[in-house]
């Protein structure tokens, strides 16, 4: 596939770094202008999705391994709520950014929104990548019948046999 489509390959290869850079801009400029974690996360994920469209899902998965993606997905959430806990630990209300910097509440607000949006960005990006991989890279589990586009709906008997009530799929 790579060899056959040189134009796609070259264009996307040159596009992916600027997309990621733009995502980071949207992420960190979100304090001052339009932007923020949600948008940045989606843009960042789109870079990965473009890459996997070009080089194939299996190849792309080697970069974004599912264990890594899943850990980051969880980490973003922990970061978000962790900021809330940190605010409580520093004597403020839950998620009160003012408390994050004991000297200057404005700095606290900056820090708080930065961390929160970072958590959101990481989680949204990895969630989008996970969703894409789940559908694009879907492989039936070993005991599942392979989905066959040409197959007609099964007869009643053969499904009843294929799915014994207690065993189910898997």
């Amino acid at each position, binding site marked *: 596939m790579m060899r056959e489509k040189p134009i796609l390959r070259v264009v996307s290869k040159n596009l992916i770094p600027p997309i990621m850079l733009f995502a980071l801009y949207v992420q960190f400029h979100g304090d001052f202008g339009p932007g923020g974690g949600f948008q940045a996360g989606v843009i960042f994920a789109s870079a990965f999705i473009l890459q996997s469209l070009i080089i194939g899902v299996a190849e792309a998965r080697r970069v974004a391994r599912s264990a890594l993606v899943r850990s980051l997905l969880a980490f973003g959430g922990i970061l978000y709520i962790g900021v809330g806990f940190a605010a409580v630990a520093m004597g403020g209300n839950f998620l009160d950014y003012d408390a994050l910097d004991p000297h200057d509440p404005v700095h606290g607000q900056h820090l708080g929104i930065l961390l929160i949006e970072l958590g959101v960005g990481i989680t949204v990006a990895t969630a989008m990548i996970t969703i894409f991989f789940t*559908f694009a890279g879907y492989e039936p589990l070993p005991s599942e019948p392979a989905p066959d586009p040409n197959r007609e709906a099964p007869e009643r008997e053969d499904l009843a046999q294929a799915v014994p009530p207690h065993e189910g799929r898997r």
Partner: protein
Amino acid sequence: MSYAVFSSFNYWMVIVLMMTGFFIVIAQGNMVKKVFGLNIFQVSVFLFYISMSPIEGGTPPILDERFELYSNPLPHVLILTAIVVGVAGMALGLALVVRIKAAYGTIEEDEIERLEEEMP
């Protein structure tokens, strides 16, 4: 009369979209179409929220001494959350459809119902 229709144009569109989505959810037997109908239904609600926020003569809500009248930014924030929730629901719905297809060999409601009646 015509004024009443056109001045609330946004609500008419919302209602049309809402009913379209709702009808698809109810009337379609195909599960993928159901999920997309649901999505149209949700999008109509997003539009409903967004379209209530602008104010005639209002500017984007960025504080500046030259302006006094601002549009309401809150609905956008609310809907950002609702969009994310909607995406999550749609992804989950489609993932379930993929698994259902693998397990039953079909994604048509009536066929699945027939197959399920055979099960104990």
